[in-house]
């Protein structure tokens, strides 16, 4: 675990302790379960965003993807009556295809990631609203999908009258995070991702297919956005495409940045993104529990990120200073060692 992640974990614990002290309901089973559910929902697509940011790019389109794929998903179930596993697969596929388009525009047409995904943000939102005539898409009365609902909005390990259970969305998030952690930090692809993000030129000189690697990051982001679209649709059960998922891409970027991803690329960790996503939801929860006007929600989030990043930069500078001192000591030691030979 990096020191950066440790600091973030500490911050979460401190904020949690303060909130728990001021309002003991924070630690109640049902509040923790609700918070965990939100962490799961928001964390899923934050992981994909993190991958894109590590390549030095950005994905602004995820919030609009939730609106577009959400209304299509509901329509597939309601109007076309497709079996839900088929609908789920189609939606994930759609997310992957959108990500692929973003990736190809970035790597082949050489457009800037910000521009590509900003256009995506506008286009998908617009199409979603047109598709539903700006109306709300929802399930019909009495329509239910027990298995799908249990997988998305249900909880596991609940004990009658005791433990409230762990939200399945959170479990899904943890499973995906574990997989992504292995991919990013242990696999060849993950190493390539860092190599491309840090120095694309040197990566190419080492024989890495840099364009394929960057494209893959957008595909992963799109695919996770597709999965998230289903979770969010099942969570809200009705979607008004003008507002569904608004600003969610910013939650994802915030979680990634809090978690140590540099917008210049080449830096970040899955654990960091997970902790970033947790911190954001704890802050949301804090606003609710401490009776802070919910209109201040974003202001609290922004403030904490600002302070967090400034503190982190100071810490990095301090550590660089220390490392420099160590290095100087090391050179002296090395010099003494070679002289001794």
């Amino acid at each position, binding site marked *: 675990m990096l020191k950066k992640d440790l600091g973030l974990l500490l911050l979460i614990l401190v904020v949690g302790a303060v909130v728990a002290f001021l309002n003991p309901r924070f630690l109640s089973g049902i509040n923790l379960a609700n918070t965990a559910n939100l962490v799961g929902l928001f964390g899923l697509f934050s992981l994909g965003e993190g991958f894109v940011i590590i390549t030095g790019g950005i994905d602004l389109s995820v919030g609009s993807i939730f609106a577009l794929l959400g209304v299509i998903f509901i329509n597939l179930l309601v109007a076309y009556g497709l079996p839900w596993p088929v609908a789920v697969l189609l939606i994930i596929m759609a997310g992957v295809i959108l990500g692929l388009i973003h990736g190809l525009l970035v790597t082949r047409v050489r457009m800037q990631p910000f521009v590509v995904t900003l256009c995506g943000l506008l286009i998908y939102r617009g199409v979603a609203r047109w598709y539903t005539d700006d109306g709300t898409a929802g399930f019909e009365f009495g329509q239910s999908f027990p298995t799908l609902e249990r997988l998305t909005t249900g909880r596991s390990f609940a004990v009658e009258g005791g433990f409230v259970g762990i939200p399945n969305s959170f479990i899904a998030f943890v499973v995906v995070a574990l997989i992504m952690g292995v991919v990013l930090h*242990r696999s060849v692809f993950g*190493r390539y991702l860092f*190599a491309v993000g840090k120095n694309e030129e*040197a990566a190419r*000189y080492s*024989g*890495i297919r840099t364009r394929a690697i960057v494209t893959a990051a957008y595909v992963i982001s799109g695919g996770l956005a597709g999965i998230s679209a289903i979770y969010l649709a099942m969570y809200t059960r009705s979607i008004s495409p003008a507002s569904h998922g608004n600003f969610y891409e910013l939650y994802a970027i915030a979680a990634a940045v809090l978690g140590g991803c540099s917008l210049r690329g080449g830096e970040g960790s899955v654990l960091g993104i997970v902790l970033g996503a947790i911190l954001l939801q704890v802050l949301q929860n804090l606003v609710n529990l401490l009776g802070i006007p919910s209109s201040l929600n974003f202001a609290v989030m922004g403030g904490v990120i600002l302070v967090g990043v400034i503190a982190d930069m100071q810490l990095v500078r301090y550590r660089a200073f220390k490392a420099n001192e160590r290095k100087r000591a090391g050179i002296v030691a*090395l010099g003494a060692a070679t002289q001794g030979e």
Partner: protein
Amino acid sequence: MSEDAAPFLELNGISKTYPGVVALDGVSLSVCRGEIVGLIGENGAGKSTLMKVLGGVVEPTAGTIRVDGRDRAAFSVNDAITSGIAFVHQELNLFDNLDVGANVLIGREPLYGGPLRLIDRKAIKRKVQPLLDRLGADFTPDTPVAELSLAQQQLLEIAKALSLDARLVIMDEPTSSLTLTETERLLTVLHELRRDGVSIIFISHRLNEVKACADRVVVLRDGRVVGALDGERIKPEAMIRLMIGRDLKSLYIPPKTAPGAPVLEIEDFRTSAFPDHPVSLTLRRGEILGLAGLIGAGRTELACAAFGIDRPLSGTLRIDGKAAAIAEPRDAIARGLYLVPEDRKRAGLHLEFSLTENISLPDLKSYATGSLISPIAEAGNAEAQRQRLNIKAYDVATEAGTLSGGNQQKIVLAKWLSMKPRVIIFDEPTRGIDVGAKSEIYALMRALADAGVAVLMISSDMEEVIGVSDRMAVMHEGTISGFLERDRFSEHNVLQLAVGKTLN
């Protein structure tokens, strides 16, 4: 020449030493008003250090500078500008997103509107147009720089110098990217400036141009002035004779075996830098082929085309007699053709990566089971390479960027040595590297060649290219002007070919 013969600039006994290196050794040089002085010397002779002294960027260790008859004790960048010394650099320092007028007066824009500080565009035109007229420029102050040719940009740099009331213009390889007619135009402009009493120091490798424009030529070698020529005595042969003749240390390690069959055959490669000049080259098993030439002769472009960085416009490449289609570096790497690039920090390394991560990067899959990297295998190989190449680092987890240039270069080598090289192209392998690491790298190249690898070494360092190569190809403006066997290696021959002359 003007009647007022008192020199505008007098350098007396200028020396500059860096730890372990004497860059300038008691250089004296004077430039009269309205005189064009050609300054020549091989790469590394001390020309650029001398120019940095004149620009006030480098403080000499000893010696005096007199400008306009006044002694200048400490000569700063500001002193250089106020005493009328201006530079026109080889790499142009222009803002290509702005227009000509804005570039000439950048930082000194005429303003109006009081506290609003608005830029007075009309005043810019008024000030810049006469300068352009004086130079006979065929563009106006509001032409965007992006639309100018290199020659026009060169003129713009001169206009900028004139706008600063420059009395001494120092031009560093001004013609290196100009066509023949553009060069002639520039030389005419220089003669007109001379008539107006402006002094010029003209640094160039193109001896014919030096001959065409200089009143006097000063030759530097190993940080010393080794001779001067004037008037009729300025002839390419005479200049070459003065430029060479230093004692070259013998670096040569003879090969253990005679060179074998051709490994790399490049046939009729045309690169986008020199689309009209096809290049052919054969590299044999077990030999070190030096690729000499002046900077900008097209050697790096050739290497990049062979390695798949830039696709050649045409031509074929064969490895071990089999045609190889190389569209990307990975295609070259798959066939055992590796490149140690010129720009180590940009293309050779990930400075923030550890030794281990750098060394395993091109061959990561062989340290992985499935697609999961084995940290033990990876670090084990890195450690082996660290010991083999004597990389001075605390351990293999050390960040590459914290090491010295020589050790960084060894990491780049370790990347390729961990694999199965057939051909390695070294592009300026020892640039910015200390002497100790240099000889280690030479020994390593020889060991590679003896092990059957074909080595192509691009080098602008005369001592290196003569001392290390078994055979040499010399490039001049995109073409190979000649091949040399070891018995014909000499600075004289290399330089002749590098400036485009033929050997008799």
